[in-house]
């Protein structure tokens, strides 16, 4: 693919847009955007498994939480320097994904959904069980003094935004590249017709395992980044709700598209932001959006755009 192909231009355009927005937006909204970018990393991780490989997991919160607790516990209890703690967080998520994946991938369809849900439930209960260290539902704060990197305090709005953007950009471009590789295209083949892919000589089991590991790793990046930039680690991030949210984000934005996850998080964030100011039952709005989405725009925003207007949309 040439450097100036439409997909490449789109990706670069998105990143440039995010840079520009920082200078244009008032602090409240740029703060939101930092959070959105970090959650979009989580969504992109989920997209690898759901959007591209076609596997619906209901337990991804455990990977996000693994990244979060891996980082948070390393810093708070181990006094580990920031970059190493960050890597530990990601590694925990990846390791968990490898273990859970090798077991859960023995099932398919509904059973896979339930098994991933149950593993996530177990992870949540384990977090509560070791409440002495994890502080359970209450959670703990990662002190500001620990959140500095190379002399830069990561708690200022600017540092937060820049870090979030850099991490997002790395994951975004890496995954956009991945889906263009033979491996990425094989994942799509597995989603479309696994038996056929198998009978073309592809080892579908290994592909699916790699997909879930990559998916878990990226989700872990999101979790570790969240803890690092927003300074809070808590068990609520390991609950079922945080497993359903990435599904919702990816569906809304467009499963199997590169930009979809970011769009999905963005829309959902502001939709909830808006409806929280109107009612405490904002999840009702979430529910209605989900139903309307799947009835009238099942491919999500970017998916429908790709289907009707821009067939080149990556």
């Amino acid at each position, binding site marked *: 693919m040439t450097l100036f192909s439409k997909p490449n231009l789109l990706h670069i355009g998105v990143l440039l847009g995010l840079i520009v927005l920082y200078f244009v937006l008032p602090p409240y909204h740029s703060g939101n955007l930092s959070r959105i970018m970090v959650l979009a990393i989580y969504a992109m991780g989920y997209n690898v498994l759901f959007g591209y490989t076609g596997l*619906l997991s209901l337990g991804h919160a455990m990977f996000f939480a693994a990244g979060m607790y891996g980082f948070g516990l390393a810093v708070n209890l181990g006094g580990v320097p920031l970059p190493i703690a960050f890597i530990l967080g990601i590694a925990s998520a990846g390791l968990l994904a490898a273990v859970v994946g090798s*077991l*859960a991938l*023995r*099932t*398919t*369809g*509904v*059973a896979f*959904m*339930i*098994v991933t*849900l*149950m*593993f996530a*439930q*177990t992870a949540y*209960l*384990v977090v*509560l*069980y070791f409440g002495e260290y994890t502080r359970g539902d209450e959670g703990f704060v990662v002190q500001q003094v620990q959140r500095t990197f190379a002399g830069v305090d990561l708690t200022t709005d600017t540092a937060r935004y820049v870090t979030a953007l850099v991490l997002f950009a790395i994951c975004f471009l890496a995954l956009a590249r991945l889906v263009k590789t033979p491996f990425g295209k094989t994942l799509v083949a597995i989603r479309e017709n696994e038996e056929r892919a198998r009978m073309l000589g592809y080892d579908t089991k290994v592909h699916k395992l790699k997909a879930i590991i990559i998916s878990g790793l990226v989700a872990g990046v999101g979790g570790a980044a969240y803890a690092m930039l927003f300074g809070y680690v808590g068990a609520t991030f390991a609950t*079922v709700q945080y497993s*359903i949210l990435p*599904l*919702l984000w990816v*569906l809304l934005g467009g499963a199997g598209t590169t930009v979809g996850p970011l769009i999905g998080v963005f829309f959902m964030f502001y939709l909830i932001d808006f409806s929280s100011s109107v*009612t*405490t*039952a*904002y*999840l*009702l709005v*979430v*529910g*209605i*959006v*989900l*139903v309307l*989405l*799947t*009835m009238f725009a*099942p491919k999500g925003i970017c998916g429908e755009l790709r289907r009707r207007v821009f067939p080149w949309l990556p």
Partner: protein
Amino acid sequence: MEFGPHLMLASLEGAVVAAVLALTAMGLSIVFGVMRVVNVAHGEFYMLGAVLAWFVTSAIGGHPALGFVAALVIAPLLVGVIAAAADTFILKHIKYDPDRTIVATIGLLYIFQQGTLMTFGPDARPVEAPFNHRLALPWIENGENGLQMFWPWGLSITSYKLFVIAAAVVVLMGLWALITRTKIGLIMRATQQDSETAQAFGIPVGRVYSLVFGLGAALAALGAVLVVPIQQAHYLMGGEPLLLAFIVVIIGGLGSLPGTVVAAVLIGMSDGIISVFFSPMVAKIIATLFVTMILIWRPQGLFGKVIR
């Protein structure tokens, strides 16, 4: 209390759990068996049954039995109608596509749950049982005069709980009769076997689906009405029954009704017994892992055939 009597008490409590679970899981099993859809909102139908029961009994004064009987009829009926409407307007539109159905029912879950929060409120509210006598239970011990019955202190059960067990058995038997002996049951089984052929024979598959979806929801609601005098109605009470019902249906074997009943009894009893003896947290962790392993190594469940 000694181990023996304690175990018996735990078993009876477990039987109550199993009874309600059997009804709820049966509802899910019928829906999945006939329609092949995963209804993530099933737990909310359960919750709606309990909440509606509260509304009905609050509205009808006088003796609690009056309100309760009314609730027993009205709540499942109303929930069934709501479910049938959801099927007609939403599920048919997305043509029961598996992924879209899961998403749509997750959406319905939030709508029902939050809708209840907005109207019913966040508190748990009790419903009075129609009758409630404490019955002391006997235990046999080898005493000085040989085997004797005695009544250990604290070993008792309420008459209402026994009623719940009996009611569940009656309803399940009625359901079995409906499915195996009536024309409607035959139509349901035919649609389950091969919906295309059924349609070719003039069976209105669309209407059968709405009926089945409504029936499944009504069963869950019925289970909730039975349990609400014991547990209290709360807008979040649908989560655990949903999970347990899914586990029961999958372990019992998708599409197998006898399997569902056996699995419900097994899981209900274990849940009841374990919660009496062990720390709930550890018990939950072990139970979750155990169920996961079964799903992984015997995905067809106890009685089911290997699907897909």
